[in-house]
């Protein structure tokens, strides 16, 4: 058996010829070096199964040879050689099968590639496990969400109904007392308190439903005209209470988001701005956009009673009513709902305030959160 020859010995890759019987016929110097062998004569005639790892041997028999027999060639096959000294060496090989079922091999070591592949597969397996875990958590979260939805329905229907009936009964009792001309100032006062407290209960129920609903998944892909949202909120407010606040504002752009949530968001913010100066509320709505025109910051400034620095820290916490509980209506949930909805839109919210002068709430929202093109006229 003669070696492949001096020319192939100069090549920086392995060359080998394997017989039909899967025995080594010939190879070059590079291959001999990998196999830790001095000359071809030392290994010629050896079965290929003796020169590879056991896993490689199974792989060759069960996958690579069927492919060679079917397609005539196999490219970029990763295998593991086993040298005569017992060392394993990863190689990448191109193999061609000839008509007589002999095969020609060209290969090179690929220690780094093998290492990289090992790491890559490890990362993939980790990712796969995480994907599975994510799927499991997602299923659980969906179940919780549907439970929450059922709870919210129960809250708004099963709670609001009885509360409304209690209020009606109190109002009937008051009417009866008045009709009968009954002088009962204490009873009037007590029923008045009961009525007021039932109103608080209604506010709380509505607030709680709003707070919970803010968590529910909604479509954030709608085109929402903020200008229209503000106008709608002000007109709704006007129908409830004819006292018009003085509102100065700039024209707001169109953004992408959930119309329903943005409506509640600005309704709560504006009601909050009006609430703390019911006599002569003045509200200024202004906005600015960043240089990249990717975000908008909307400022809502009021002339209310303001807040201390300490109160500012808690202003978005749920069930926090910072001012004189008896004097100002509300559930203590309005601003926490606002915060949730802002977060749902990948936004941010913060406030500045001076006690006795007023507060300014800033809402930062992405103009185009999911790659939707902004409307040409959005930069009004």
């Amino acid at each position: 058996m003669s070696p492949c020859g001096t020319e192939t010995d100069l090549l920086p890759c392995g060359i080998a010829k394997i017989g039909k019987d899967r025995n080594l016929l010939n190879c070059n110097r590079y291959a001999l070096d990998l196999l830790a062998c001095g000359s071809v004569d030392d290994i010629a005639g050896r079965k290929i199964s003796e020169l590879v790892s056991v896993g490689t041997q199974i792989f060759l028999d069960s996958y690579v040879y069927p492919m060679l027999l079917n397609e005539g060639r196999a490219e970029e096959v990763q295998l593991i050689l086993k040298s005569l000294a017992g060392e394993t060496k990863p190689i990448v090989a191109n193999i061609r099968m000839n008509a007589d079922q002999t095969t020609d091999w060209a290969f090179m070591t690929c220690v780094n590639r093998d290492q990289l592949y090992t790491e890559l597969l490890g990362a993939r397996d980790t990712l796969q496990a995480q994907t599975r875990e994510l799927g499991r958590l997602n299923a659980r979260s969906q179940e919780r969400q549907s439970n929450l939805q059922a709870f919210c329905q129960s809250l708004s229907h099963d709670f609001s109904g009885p509360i409304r009936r209690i209020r009606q009964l109190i109002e009937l009792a008051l009417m009866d007392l008045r009709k009968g001309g009954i002088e009962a100032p204490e009873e009037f006062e007590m029923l008045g308190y009961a009525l007021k407290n039932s109103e608080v209960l209604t506010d709380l129920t509505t607030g709680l439903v709003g707070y919970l609903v803010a968590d529910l998944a909604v479509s954030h892909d709608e085109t929402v005209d903020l200008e229209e949202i503000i106008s709608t909120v002000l007109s709704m407010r006007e129908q409830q209470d004819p006292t018009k606040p003085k509102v100065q504002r700039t024209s707001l752009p169109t953004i992408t988001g959930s119309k329903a949530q943005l409506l509640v968001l600005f309704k709560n913010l504006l009601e909050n701005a009006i609430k703390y100066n019911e006599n002569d509320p003045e509200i200024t709505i202004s906005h600015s956009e960043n240089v990249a025109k990717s975000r908008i910051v909307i400022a809502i400034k009021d002339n209310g009673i303001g807040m201390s620095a300490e109160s500012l820290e808690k202003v978005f916490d749920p069930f926090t009513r910072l001012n004189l509980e008896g004097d100002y209506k509300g559930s203590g949930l309005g601003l926490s709902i606002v915060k949730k909805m802002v977060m749902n839109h990948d936004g941010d919210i913060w406030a500045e305030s001076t006690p006795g002068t007023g507060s300014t709430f800033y809402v930062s929202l992405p103009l185009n959160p999911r790659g939707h093109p902004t409307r040409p006229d959005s930069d009004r």
Partner: protein
Amino acid sequence: MRNLSLTKEAIIKRNNVTIHGTGSKVMMLAHGFGCDQRMWRFVLPALSERYTLVLFDYVGSGNSDLSSFSVDKYADLNGYAQDAVDIIDAFELKDVTFVGHSVSSMIGLIASIASPGAIAELIMVCPSPCFLNDLPEYEGGFNRSDLEELLSLMDKNYIGWANYLAPLVMGANSSEALIGELSGSFCSTDPVVAKAFAKATFFSDHRSLLPQCSARTLILQSASDSLASVHIGEYIHQHVPDSELKIIEAEGHCLHMTDPEVAARSVIDFAG
């Protein structure tokens, strides 16, 4: 075991069933690893002269319908055996001669036991009922670590050959259906399926089924096959009641491809 939930057309599509030849005797050819029904093409001319041949691809191989793959169903060879029985039922066949290469020998064995009357003759080409050593009673040829190295090697090769992220797609999809085109090489076997198939094959032990085989059986073994040696053929022959063993002077695990004339002759001699 009969599957009433699928129509004949759905089964043909799922397993890319193709019919060749016109003989009155029906022979089903079931491919082995790393390939599809194309691996029978070397013996097809000789066999199609005498038999009606039913060829198919296992789900995940060749032109099968990948979306039918399910991790649970194909976690062991029973899922593949069910598909073989589905095909026999769909064509209203009985007493079929089932020729299975390598792992398909065991799939045919499972199918013949599970569906009596479907398979009358079983021709096992290079079979092994268990690749793992169970010393001292049984020498399957390999230790667990060897087979784990095989799986790792398959994984590494699929990085180059196919979509190595396929397992992730799989994980993310609740229906467990795979979407996407198969790589052209490696006989178009999907990486996820190939690995599941390899696990189902190499880590399983079907030795206990051998004595239950009632089909007339031919075991064709290569004289030199590092995956399934002659003594494994002898073991099967000892345990399958109505069996004969034929050792063919051949190299490797793919008799029907390396020595198609001898393989076809042996099949015809046995099946008539």
